[in-house]
């Protein structure tokens, strides 16, 4: 029941998001024709022909209908400035961005849980303080300056990794790997900075609770309490935060990809925004939104599975 309800509300939100996305983007001034036509943009006739060719002279509701209907069939439309289906334009970049996000997630999720637990079991210790200080600083600095420091240290001084990505967009994953090291380290640093504190405070909170007190009284071992009881109770809410960070990580790649010249969705979006290529922008937004919704659904499901009690106040 709860799961079904959750699913239904997600679908409803998704629909709302797509409406917001379409109308917000379409009502902005300027279009692909004014942005793209040469000097000829002053000529109303040429402008009209261009708009007719691209099909953007239709009333907005008609276009929304067509767009939504095509979307139902999984068709994201055609890029106005690249003359190719949006899905085709997005696909290679999407793969690169997902690769970046996936490796960052694989590196940072366990790391933030482990560091969080370590800090929580020794609150106030020198280790705890150091970790907190490092990640607090990482949390207050813009990503692009962290990334630049990484480049100067690891790519220019030590020459361990490439400074910028110069392999082709469609290169095999193996060729991509050395190039994603610095972006991944930067993204992970920021992500761990944000999530480690959550895990830490959750675990501390649980360790101080009556429930754990009871475990102590019953003579359970330290490790059993930590991993058998404290962690399972602390993880579900932390997972929510982690899922949200992962989703926002997809947004943060715009900055990171720019710094590292990485051929991903962020770079593509910047180009599309500048070309006023709305179908492409909308396509990217749809992909991001689906990912976000999927991730938060996943986090909810895992939370529910791990801790039945969480199910009750899931929809607070």
């Amino acid at each position, binding site marked *: 029941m709860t799961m079904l309800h959750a699913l239904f509300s997600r679908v409803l939100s998704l629909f709302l998001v797509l409406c*917001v996305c379409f109308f917000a983007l379409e009502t902005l001034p300027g279009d692909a024709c004014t942005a793209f036509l040469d000097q000829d943009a002053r000529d109303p006739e040429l402008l009209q022909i261009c708009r007719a060719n691209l099909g953007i002279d239709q009333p907005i509701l008609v276009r929304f209908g067509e767009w939504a209907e095509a979307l139902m069939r999984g068709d994201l439309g055609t890029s106005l400035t690249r003359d190719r289906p949006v899905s085709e334009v997005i696909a290679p970049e999407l793969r690169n961005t997902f690769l970046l996000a996936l490796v960052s997630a694989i590196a940072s999720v366990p790391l933030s849980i482990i560091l969080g637990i370590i800090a929580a079991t020794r609150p106030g210790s020198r280790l705890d303080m150091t970790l907190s200080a490092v990640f607090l600083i990482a949390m207050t*600095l*813009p990503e692009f300056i962290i990334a630049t420091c990484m480049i100067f240290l690891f790519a220019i001084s030590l020459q361990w990794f490439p400074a910028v990505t110069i392999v082709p967009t469609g290169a095999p994953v193996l060729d991509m790997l050395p190039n994603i090291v610095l972006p991944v380290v930067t993204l992970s640093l920021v992500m761990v900075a944000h*999530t480690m504190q959550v895990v830490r*405070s959750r675990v501390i909170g649980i360790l101080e609770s009556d429930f754990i007190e009871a475990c102590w009284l019953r003579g359970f071992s330290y490790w059993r309490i930590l991993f058998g009881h404290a962690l399972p109770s602390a993880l579900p809410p932390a997972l929510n935060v982690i899922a949200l960070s992962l989703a926002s990580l997809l947004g943060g790649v*715009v900055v990171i990809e720019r710094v590292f010249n990485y051929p991903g969705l962020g770079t593509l979006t910047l180009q599309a*925004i500048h070309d006023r290529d709305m179908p492409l922008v909308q396509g990217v937004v749809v992909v991001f939104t689906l990912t976000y919704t999927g991730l938060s659904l996943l986090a909810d499901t895992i939370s529910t599975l791990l801790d039945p009690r969480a199910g009750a106040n899931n929809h*607070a």
Partner: protein
Amino acid sequence: MLEPASITDGAVGSADQKGLNVNSSPKRSFQKLLRIILSTPSGVVGFGVVAAHVVVALIAPAIVLHDPLAQDPNQIMAAPSWTHPFGTDLLGRDVLSRTLEGGRVAIAVTALSALLALIGGAAIGITAAMRGGWFDSLTMRLVESIGALPYLLFLLVLANAFPGSAFALVPALAIFYSTSIVRVSRAAALSVASADFVTAARVRGEKAITVLLREVLPNVLDVVLVDGALRWASMLLGFSSLSFLGFGVAPPTPDWGLMISDARNVMAIAPWAVFWPCVALSTLILGAIFLADAASKAVGLQRAPEGLNP
């Protein structure tokens, strides 16, 4: 990286935890919060740093030694000296003056957005909690939807459509960052709605708006302020990213984000041009986090840092 979406369940639990202090006016509630904040070391530090930044931003034009826009062809990337204690940048401009004025636009834009988000978000959240029903469901679905949008992309699209003024971003920033405030205030309002003093006020036959202002608002204000402080910190970072991508503050207006991104490539030869604006931005965000941390401890939340995320 930082997105405005936030965590709801923490606030729900906390509102239960903190017990229902019966405050009678928003002003008193605010004063009490401030008093508690200033009783902890991190609260004092956070409050001091943020206040100092705001004061400097306000009086900067009167105290700078050089015109932050003045270019000196003979002092390009000059190292710190008595005339230029923080050195000069790529166009021979005084880094100290630029750092002092570099927060003005960012603080104004983000504080205004945060304030709007706070007022609007709290109003919507509390109303949703009190009215319930279809209004509540619709609000929550909308909040969820906006939270799911890649907000940075939207801001970029907006900035591209209305180039030139960073203030054009205020409504969008306010809307995106208000989602978590709506959730937090709604949850907090729900937990007080059933409290005896609210019921008592209703039984006394007081108007809904009076109940809201007198009984509910004072009791959710602290939780909302904590979240607002964190939203603000996160907005400051997001705003610097916009400047980096070329969509925030237009040159040559001094702006920390812009200063950092302009000089980052020469940080090996002119580190001072990057270091000082970084310190300024970082301390302000740190101050806001400390402030929120102290405030959340004061209201019994215990886990402020997570609020900055994501």
